[in-house]
């Protein structure tokens, strides 16, 4: 992978790679998320393709220096279009012993370690559970170790800037970032500009951060901290304007876009929960778009307010994670019965119960498909990657409005907090979402018939309060077809259950067919949904490098499933379904299509490593 070349940097050699994985790790208070995201932005401006994956502790302020307090940020940079944030870091920044302890096992053999030696005192070593100092006992001999007294050098660097006391060492992350900028040949100006803008109200902090950043860079250059520096050439990304986006932000923006395209006010009723809260935070900032956010007393009230807003004529959305979605279950069935448009976002995390609240998992699929009382086959959509959240939010709204139904939109913590470059769409080209509010009675005798279905979509009319002549009542009791009056008639119940199910099943004719990518003539198909999109395709690519033929397909629609899925599955003798659960799509696919698919499953609070899937593919090809 590496290609050595001399550069203008004196005495150092630059190795060129097609991709590299870098991980910043430190104490929660060390600012590693910030350092990582600055490194990412500089890399984006440099022209690399990239993907990121942050990892935070569940505790807000775990005791400093301990293993539970370690926070990390991983980014993969590449000169081609990569699909994941990478399996194992090539370079690890460890700001203290706990960060080293927790992350070293992931570092590639022979990888580069940048260590803040000042943090390796006896107390910190003990807190991290080291019996001897790894800097001295030879346990790091198989890595390229760059030892830097960062506390001391940062203190020195910020001396003239006016910061004092605890603020001095706050700039440490910028020192590390500066050193990394040198090591990886990142441009420095964007970071310096960013510092100036970000801390414009605290000029002494801006000065300290800039000084620390430059000191880190100069430390690399002048001391020749290592004989080897790294380079990843820019990727050839398609022309266009890009931003680096996380799934939660893209989802929030997608909802704003959907509301504009539908010409409806957006309403988001919710209750805070990790990892969905950032959607609320983002939406609550955009009041000038007419976005109303309501932080309710609980998740049931969150969806309750959204159902009210839907009845009142808004694009209504509620969002949560597993435990909160469980609380909403009864109300989702109500919305299904009322036949009102509603988007329900589930940013999945490790469960059951509080589980692993800051880690990704895909374990709510069967719950989404089947987890309600009564016959309530709600449409279920799943986001594939951070930027895909924008499109899928619009799609969920389109289906909800067109078919007058709640729609479940699945994300997960990997998508929500991971990021990738997103080629910005021309917003004028996003198709409008037609909304037809009922304005006039639709019955023969001038009566309004709230459950008279549209001939094509089977949707009922949306008549909002305030419209004269269309006063009507909806409710959870079974309705008589057409009139919507309460009905306990057995045949009517059969008809209504069938009608609601048929309405949703028919959406299959209005969604794209599933596409098979890769080797069309392969005998193995890797089928995925949600955030396994990147790892699955990356694994298939690697397997192809090993000379095997493999195809991939990805499901963004879980209910209804794409209409051609049965035909696709039957083309492949072998089907592999990797999932971050114990086999939920696998069960569903086997029962729907009677195919002998095989699962690759893990629930370890982390995304798949590409190698794990590649290995499984190779094993199945034997």
């Amino acid at each position: 992978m590496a290609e050595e070349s001399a550069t203008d940097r004196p005495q150092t050699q630059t190795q060129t790679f097609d991709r590299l994985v870098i991980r910043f790790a430190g104490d929660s208070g060390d600012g590693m998320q910030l350092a990582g995201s600055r490194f990412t932005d500089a890399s984006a401006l440099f022209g690399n393709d990239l993907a990121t994956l942050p990892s935070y502790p569940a505790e807000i302020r775990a005791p400093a220096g301990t293993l539970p307090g370690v926070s990390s940020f991983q980014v993969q940079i590449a000169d081609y279009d990569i699909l994941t944030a990478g399996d194992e870091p090539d370079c690890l920044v460890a700001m203290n012993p706990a960060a080293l302890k927790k992350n070293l096992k992931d570092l590639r053999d022979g990888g580069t370690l940048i260590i803040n030696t000042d943090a390796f005192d006896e107390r910190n070593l003990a807190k991290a559970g080291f019996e001897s100092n790894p800097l001295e006992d030879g346990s790091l001999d198989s890595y390229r170790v760059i030892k830097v007294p960062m506390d001391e050098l940062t203190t020195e660097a910020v001396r003239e800037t006016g910061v004092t006391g605890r603020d001095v060492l706050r700039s440490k992350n910028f020192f590390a970032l500066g050193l990394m900028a040198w090591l990886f040949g990142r441009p420095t100006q964007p970071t310096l500009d960013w510092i100036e803008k970000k801390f414009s109200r605290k000029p002494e902090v801006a000065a300290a951060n800039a000084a620390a950043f430059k000191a880190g860079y100069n430390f690399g250059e002048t001391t020749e901290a290592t004989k080897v520096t790294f380079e990843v050439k820019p990727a050839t990304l398609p022309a266009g304007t890009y931003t680096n986006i996380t799934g939660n932000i893209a989802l929030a923006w997608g909802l704003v876009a959907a509301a504009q395209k539908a010409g409806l006010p957006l309403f988001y009723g919710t209750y805070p929960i990790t990892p969905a809260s950032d959607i609320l935070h983002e939406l609550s900032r955009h009041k000038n778009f007419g976005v109303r956010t309501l932080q309710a007393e609980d998740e049931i009230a969150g969806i309750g307010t959204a159902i009210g807003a839907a009845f009142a004529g808004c694009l209504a959305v509620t969002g949560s994670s597993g435990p909160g979605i469980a609380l909403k279950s009864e109300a989702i069935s109500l919305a299904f019965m009322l036949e009102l448009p509603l988007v329900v976002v589930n940013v999945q995390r490790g469960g059951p119960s509080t589980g692993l609240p800051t880690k990704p998992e895909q374990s709510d699929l069967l719950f989404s498909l089947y987890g309600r009382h009564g016959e309530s086959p709600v449409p279920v959509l799943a986001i594939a990657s951070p930027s895909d959240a924008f499109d899928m939010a619009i799609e969920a709204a389109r289906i909800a409005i067109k078919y007058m139904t709640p729609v479940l939109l699945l994300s997960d913590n990997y998508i929500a907090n991971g990021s990738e470059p997103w080629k910005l769409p021309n917003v004028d080209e996003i198709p409008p979402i037609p909304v037809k509010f009922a304005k006039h009675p639709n019955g023969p005798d001038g009566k309004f018939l709230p459950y008279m279905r549209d001939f094509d979509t089977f949707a009922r009319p949306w008549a909002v309060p305030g419209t004269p002549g269309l006063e009507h009542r909806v409710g959870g009791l079974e309705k008589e077809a057409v009139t919507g009056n309460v009905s306990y008639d057995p045949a009517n119940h059969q008809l209504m259950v069938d009608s609601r199910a048929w309405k949703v099943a028919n959406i299959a004719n209005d969604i794209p067919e599933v596409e098979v990518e890769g080797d069309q003539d392969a005998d193995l198909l890797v089928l995925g949904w949600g955030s396994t999109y990147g790892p699955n395709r990356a694994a298939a690519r690697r397997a192809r490098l090993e000379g095997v033929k493999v195809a991939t397909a990805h499901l963004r629609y879980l209910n209804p499933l794409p209409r051609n899925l049965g035909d696709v599955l039957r083309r492949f003798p072998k089907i592999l379904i990797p999932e971050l659960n114990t086999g939920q799509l696998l069960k569903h696919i086997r029962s729907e299509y009677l195919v002998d698919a095989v699962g690759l499953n893990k629930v370890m609070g982390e995304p798949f490593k590409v190698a794990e899937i590649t290995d499984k593919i190779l094993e199945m090809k034997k």
Partner: protein
Amino acid sequence: MTLSYTRADFQTDQEVRWCPGCGDYTILASVQQFLARLGRPREQFVFVSGIGCSSRFPYYMNTYGMHSIHGRAPAIATGIAVTRPDLSVWVVTGDGDALSIGGNHLIHALRRNVNIKILLFNNQIYGLTKGQYSPTSELGKTTKSSPFGTIDHPFNPVSLALGAEATFVARTLDMDREHTQMVLQKAYEHEGAAFIEIYQNCNVFNDKAFIQLTGKEERVHNRINLEHGKPIVFDEGKKAVVLRDGQAVIVDSNSVDPGAILVHDETRPDPSVAFALSRLSHGPYGPTPLGVFRNVSRPTYDAEMNRQLEEARAQRGPGDLSKLIRSLGTWTVDEGGEITEG
């Protein structure tokens, strides 16, 4: 726009299915009559209910309506009220619906002062599920689910609403249509959340629960009518209410100086006196205040939410989607692969 309506304009073609003699009929008639009198276009009304006998109410109102799920009506009504300030939004709920399963939503709707009018039909029993005790059933009550008597201390709904800092709190009685409509009118005029407890007779599972307030003999002695600006006297003037150490107490009128009799002021900013009045009775078992306990003004949640939207628009202009998606910083790759910031 004032329209001339009759009660019939607010009736639907659906057969009303409460038990014959149920207090719900009377309340329905009062509300229909009241709305007809208001003359506001009926499409501007929305009635949202939970689950229970009382919650069937919207089906019989020729307005917009939603019969929702158990306990959640205040939340749903909140969603309507905050997005549509042009509507008049009403909640119909029962003592189980509002105070048991939906207790949380009730107190938060009151605390936020959302512009919704909440009618709590208190029959002190679970009607629809056929006669279990409710959070307002008297201690020791024998019901299907409490054959040895309840051991649950009941809520006083008016005290609860005052504790939740409701800006409008009242109590009325199904049988007294005139009083009911007087209270409805005041609630309607109030800007913000209005809470009305309506004593409602369930003649099947808890008959005569309110006999002390409805019986010809009894009501004379027990109805304490709260009237704004008037001294609180009852029982044909024989009894009066005074404040002692912050507590409301009933005394013989002639045992106190007339100046010492508490003059009812529903607009007192501090809810303590209203709360003291609510403690005069722990249920309809003896002298019990009826009328408006509290009627004060505080910014409403919906108006505040919409104010923030207006201000944001005034300051930042209407939302520009294209700018929004560029707001986190961008870079541009041109056809030649050249990259520039922005």
